């Protein structure tokens, strides 16, 4: 079989460029396997992140032929033998080295989200929740924190000045999941508007398109949040929604 040419970004904050590596294809290989092969045989110091190799940990985000993807879930048979495949680090976050970027922005934003505030338990000391009331939130809980949605969001990518007041799509669904939680009683409306900056999102849906977990970030997360913000100006409506649970807010 013809070899693949892997054009991999090599460099650090001070600069760098693409370097070509020739690799023998093998059945079922994914891009991450090829990167590992290069690392083991041609460039021991090639930096990349990975853990699970099965799309579960969200470590191996990169841009493959310009598209933000998980390297471990991108099969080489997507490409024609003989093709040149470029692998670059995700663009939005500062480069550390090769395919590894500094994603600390996301960990900062994570800390700002006001946590759950529970309502009192049932008389027997436990809580009850119905499956249909948590289906939507379980969808958000599938997030593997690959930060690909954060990578493609133009507010983060192109507007350094707005980053301070913008959490990004990953955290919009985090906030939505807390807000729709059947046991939660916290009012996050001022946080959502002022600190998370949901108003800056203009629903381009780029985030939803790249999500490897197929989470409907915009339709199920951001748009309902925006609607809630409109309602939250009216405290009675906010309270009603909160206590009727997520079902009533989907309509």
């Amino acid at each position, binding site marked *: 079989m013809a070899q693949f040419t892997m054009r991999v970004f090599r460099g650090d904050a001070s600069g760098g460029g693409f370097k070509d590596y020739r690799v023998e294809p093998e059945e079922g290989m994914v891009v991450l396997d090829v990167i590992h092969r290069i690392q083991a045989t041609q460039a021991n110091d090639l930096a990349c992140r990975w853990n699970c190799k099965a799309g579960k*940990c969200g470590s191996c985000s990169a841009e493959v032929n310009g598209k933000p993807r998980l390297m471990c879930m991108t099969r080489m048979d997507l490409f024609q033998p003989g093709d040149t495949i470029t692998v670059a680090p995700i663009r939005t976050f500062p480069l550390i080295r090769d395919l590894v970027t500094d994603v600390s922005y996301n960990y900062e934003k994570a800390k700002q989200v006001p946590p759950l505030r529970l309502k009192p338990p049932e008389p027997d000391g436990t809580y009850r929740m119905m499956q249909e009331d948590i289906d939507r939130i379980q969808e958000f809980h599938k997030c593997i924190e690959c930060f690909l949605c954060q990578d493609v969001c133009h507010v983060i990518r192109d507007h350094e000045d707005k980053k301070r007041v913008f959490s990004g799509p990953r955290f919009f669904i985090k906030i939505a999941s807390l807000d729709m939680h059947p046991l939660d009683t916290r009012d996050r409306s001022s946080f959502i508007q002022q600190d998370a900056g949901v108003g800056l999102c203009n629903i381009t849906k780029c985030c939803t398109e790249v999500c490897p977990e197929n989470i409907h970030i915009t339709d199920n997360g951001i748009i309902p949040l925006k609607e809630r913000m409109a309602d939250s100006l009216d405290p009675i409506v906010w309270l009603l929604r909160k206590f009727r649970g997520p079902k009533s807010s989907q309509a």
Partner: protein
Amino acid sequence: MANQDYETHEHDVLVIGAGGAGLRAAIEAAAQGVSVGLVCKSLLGKAHTVMAEGGIAAALGNVWPEDNWQVHFRDTMRGGKMLNNWRMAQLHAQEAPDRVLELERWGALFDRTKDGRILQRDFGGHRYARLAHVGDRTGLEMIRTLQYHGIHQGIDVYMECKVERLLKDGDHVCGAFGYWRNTGKFVLFKAKAVVLATGGVGKAWKVTSNSWEYTGDGQSLALWAGADLIDMEFVQFHPTGMVWPPSVRGILVTEGVRGDGGTLKNTKGERFMFNYIPEFFKGETADNEAEADRWYADKKNNRRTPDLLPRDEVARAINAEIKGGRGTPHGGVFLDICTRRPADYIRKRLPSMYHQFKELAGVDITKEPMEVGPTCHYIMGGVRVDADTTAATVKGLFAAGEVAGGMHGSNRLGGNSLSDLLVFGRRAGLYAALYAKDFGGPLTVESSHVESLAREMLEPFTRTGGENPYAIQADLQETMQNLVGLIRTEHELREAMKRIESFRHRAARTHVDGGRTYNPGWHMALDLASLLTVAECCTLAALERRESRGGHTRDDHPYTDDSWGKINVVIRQRQGALALSREPLPEMPAELKALFQERK
């Protein structure tokens, strides 16, 4: 000298590892009001725990009210072939339900029963449906819940930072030394108490469900600091890893597939597990297909399907089928759920298995069977700890989670790890904090020791003509796979010892290119020390135990021997050499022993 510069941080409690055990420990220690540092090699939220699929075992009794801690305790001990530390197994069974409910209070959303409580699923070796779960991504739910709860508790997190050595002052631990992966700069942690929560050792094998992080760091750090390891011969080969295509070989297929109705078949279409029911489990295992199939819905009047025997039994059976020529061309057996459950049900219950096979193998599991075979998965052995406090045998050192030994005896039941992380993670955090509060003296770290460590760590950069560290790792993995695998025998184990010795010589001569910034070649060169240490410990202990039990099968000693059932193999390092001893298992009190007489 500048190269050996390091930054210094000081904490009452330093937790090494941010999986389920480490996060739970850090949260508990912080709740005791002490200052806590949490170190991990990957980014926060990426530890192994994130990959766990099937569920958390806890006798909540939501699906089967007959379930309670005694039944869970009994299942755990029997699954471990009675070699478990009984007190750990007892605490685990008693406290797991509270720990699961606590996760729910911190925001976890488990799948629900019809009346709105936590749903539980069947798993191997558990008498009742017992595993709290979220589809087949339970570990993700668990680690996110702990992570997001943890970030509000004032814990200092050091991500992508690797601890290379524990530091001691006289007889007690006083901190740890390591480096930042990002920059390659050194870092010194001074701490009154250290909790190890570093996970397992699976990267010493070639076919494994484990990630790059599993290089046995915690076991090695403890050993080098003078602490005891126990039960290192017991390595769990999970019966169902993917076998095809080659690049995904070893990736886990959750036991939940069988828990939800899947069955193992050979190429003749036989449900072969009926041929492999051991005497020990005959009384509780169905011996015909009709009864096995009825059992899923009616546990009172039927016995459990042999597809859900403990993992050691199932892995050996699969191995025997393959050796007997009834395996698939890719060297596995079939795992069939598509002819047994509707497609919708499969997609709802096992979404990530569906996705994983579809994307990685091009197989639609609602239409075709999966091909599976054993994969190195978990180590039962580890740091010897006190059951109640998780204290290791060196002062100031604690251990919890996969890195600790004892809880699971010779074989772990599925779902009992995630619960173990919560129960003993909490205890580790609590007792480490109490120890730190009582700690009187000053924290003294000898700087010359630290500087010489730093110099040693930089050596791979300056050697000329040395070896590629990846090549040494690959050779070690090949050796462990072939000679210290599922089935062992004395001459192969001796051969493995020789080879490990030669890898040690090679590892002392590695060379790496590039600089210190995020350099995986250098990281691998350093990881070889712990990888070789645990490989040697596993092999030595496997040589010592001349019987077959749980995760340790000796071809030359094929039977379980009662006298070995009262003994732990203990390894410690003395004057630079490994010393082995046989020590008596703690004796179970009479009221617990009675639990094993009640039923068949």
